[in-house]
């Protein structure tokens, strides 16, 4: 039987019941060959947090990672049995199974020759095992709660995660596009023209779960699979574009498998990642980025959950740590915290009533979701929301163990000029509430210059331990890990009551 035939037969044999055993993660009696399959999985992670993601993989899967030269990607080996656990990783945006990796691909001289090579490449790759993994993954996904439906109804923001020419096919339903985020508008929430809609998605949650159980019993017999190729290309010496590569490689794939090409409604997404001389061919295992998982109510500057997770992990939360986000926006960080570090206590605070309400709604949605999904009796999570002013926090001195926040960049929210006054005041107030000696802060900002200046005057209370350079929607930002020195906070004597920033 030819390779193609075998691969196609695998796919036509989609049998939900047959695969059920292979999805189980617990070790038991010897099983069929496919479960002992070792595969290489690739994961995209927020750039800058590759090491954090690698740590999570080691901790949860026991696998060591290779961090790719192509920033924002890590690779690790697992057995197919662990596939379910891979989906539980919280630091990864997207997952794919590696078909083949070329460490040093030799490109021919002319564009025509290079593209011809890509076309012919399709037929020479070892598809059958990765497709088996794709198969297992697909039947596994059908059982998961359909979060897709929920996300389609909420307002979303288009994020360019700076990873090449991949077309983002999700719709902007409620018009929160980048175009409306005019940098002239200093405070988004202050703009009366932007109507605020806070709708809970509880109804949708329940409806989609009902659909899930109805659909599960219906078995589809796929005739011809639909596919598309997504190409990400980075490098200066290439004589072709990602579109051309995707087109010609896709042509080769189509000839080989006799699949149908479909850009929007595909079953298989083939990935062609080209970074200088390194090429990785993969098959996507996630169809929608996991990074929006916890947030149903988006704000103009909502942070990716994967980034929130990475930031929290950086400060190594200990059981019963009090973790505060004093500028929480929609609450992405505390919500991620309450989900993953439920043995800590999280507080989400913001001065803006819209933001606090959004955060509270996201918390409610989270509680409802976990109630339905896991059938848990638990209603509550160790998280609370407060409306307050970062410069004047209504918290006891030295009562907070960890401060994690996404500081206004001065681009979409706030302004650079405002930051000159805001940043020192923030750092000062944060140093007051943070526990001396053991306390720490993880702060994300794009205004690195202002931050560094503000920090320079605070060496007696804050010590910079580590910096992670990240890319947020095309902006080069930094995540600073600070440790609170043992020195107790001394309330400044106010002479004439005038507050100067330095």
């Amino acid at each position: 039987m030819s390779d193609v035939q075998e691969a196609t037969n695998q796919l036509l044999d989609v049998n939900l019941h047959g695969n059920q055993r292979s999805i189980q993660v617990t070790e038991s009696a010897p099983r069929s060959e496919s479960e002992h399959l070792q595969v290489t999985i690739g994961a995209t992670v927020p750039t800058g947090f590759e090491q954090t993601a690698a740590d999570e993989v080691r901790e949860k899967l026991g696998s060591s990672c290779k961090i790719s030269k192509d920033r924002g990607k890590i690779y690790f080996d697992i057995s197919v049995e662990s596939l379910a656990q891979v989906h539980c990783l919280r630091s990864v945006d997207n997952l794919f199974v590696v078909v083949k990796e070329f460490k040093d691909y030799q490109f021919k001289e002319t564009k025509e020759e290079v593209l011809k090579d890509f076309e012919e490449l399709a037929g020479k790759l070892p598809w059958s095992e990765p497709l088996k993994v794709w198969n297992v993954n697909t039947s596994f996904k059908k059982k998961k709660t359909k979060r897709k439906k929920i996300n389609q109804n909420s307002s979303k923001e288009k994020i360019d995660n700076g990873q090449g020419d991949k077309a983002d096919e999700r719709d902007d339903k409620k018009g929160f596009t980048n175009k409306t985020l005019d940098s002239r508008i200093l405070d988004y929430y202050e703009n009366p023209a932007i109507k605020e809609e806070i709708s809970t998605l509880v109804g949708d949650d329940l409806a989609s779960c009902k659909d899930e159980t109805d659909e599960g019993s219906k078995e589809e017999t796929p005739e011809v699979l639909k596919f598309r190729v997504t190409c990400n290309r980075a490098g200066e010496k290439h004589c072709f574009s990602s579109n051309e590569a995707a087109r010609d490689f896709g042509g080769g794939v189509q000839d080989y498998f006799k699949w149908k090409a479909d850009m929007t409604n595909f079953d298989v997404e083939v990935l062609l990642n080209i970074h200088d001389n390194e090429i990785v061919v993969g098959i996507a295992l996630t169809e929608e980025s996991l990074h929006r998982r916890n947030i149903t109510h988006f704000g103009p500057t909502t942070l990716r959950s994967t980034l929130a997770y990475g930031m929290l992990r950086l400060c190594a939360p200990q059981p019963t740590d009090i973790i505060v986000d004093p500028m929480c926006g929609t609450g992405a960080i505390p919500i991620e915290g309450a989900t993953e570090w439920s043995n800590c206590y999280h507080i989400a605070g913001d001065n803006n009533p819209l933001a606090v309400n959004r955060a509270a709604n996201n918390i409610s949605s989270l509680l409802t979701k976990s109630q339905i999904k896991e059938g848990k009796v638990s209603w509550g999570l160790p998280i609370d929301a407060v409306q307050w002013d970062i410069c004047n926090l209504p918290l006891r001195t030295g009562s907070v163990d960890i401060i994690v926040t996404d500081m206004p960049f001065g681009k979409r929210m706030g302004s650079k000029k405002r930051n000159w006054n805001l940043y020192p005041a923030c750092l000062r107030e944060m140093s007051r509430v943070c526990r001396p000696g053991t306390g720490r802060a993880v702060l994300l900002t794009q205004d690195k210059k202002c931050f560094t200046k503000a920090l320079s005057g605070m060496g007696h209370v804050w010590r910079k331990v580590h910096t992670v350079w990240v890319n947020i929607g095309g902006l080069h930002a930094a995540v600073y890990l600070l440790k609170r020195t043992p020195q107790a906070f001394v309330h400044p004597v106010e002479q004439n009551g005038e507050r100067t920033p330095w």
Partner: protein
Amino acid sequence: MKLLTHNLLSSHVRGVGPRGFPLRLQATEVRINPVEFNPDFVARMIPKVEWAALLEAADTVPKEPIEGYEHDEKFLRKMHHVLLEVDVLEGTLQCPESGRLFPISRGIPNMLLSDEETET
């Protein structure tokens, strides 16, 4: 607002300083949310909590932690309930020094001071 949060909140009205703690809680609407009991969490949280403030906020709290509380499940369950399961939905927090009232609405305390209160 959970009582553990109340235990951390302090009035920041100008000039009040540490005398702004604890805020006097007046609850008009309370909801009890069951939360998964984690004895370890509660046991470790107890030394971090300001006991007198907790006492004032919840009249069901014993005068002080019992000797050997780490192993007293009944006591830990009671504290778990007080710290995490009682949710104040509507009410007020009052600064003990200045008398300033901060409202709690839909479970969220509003601790913002007006511009006049923060300026000299």
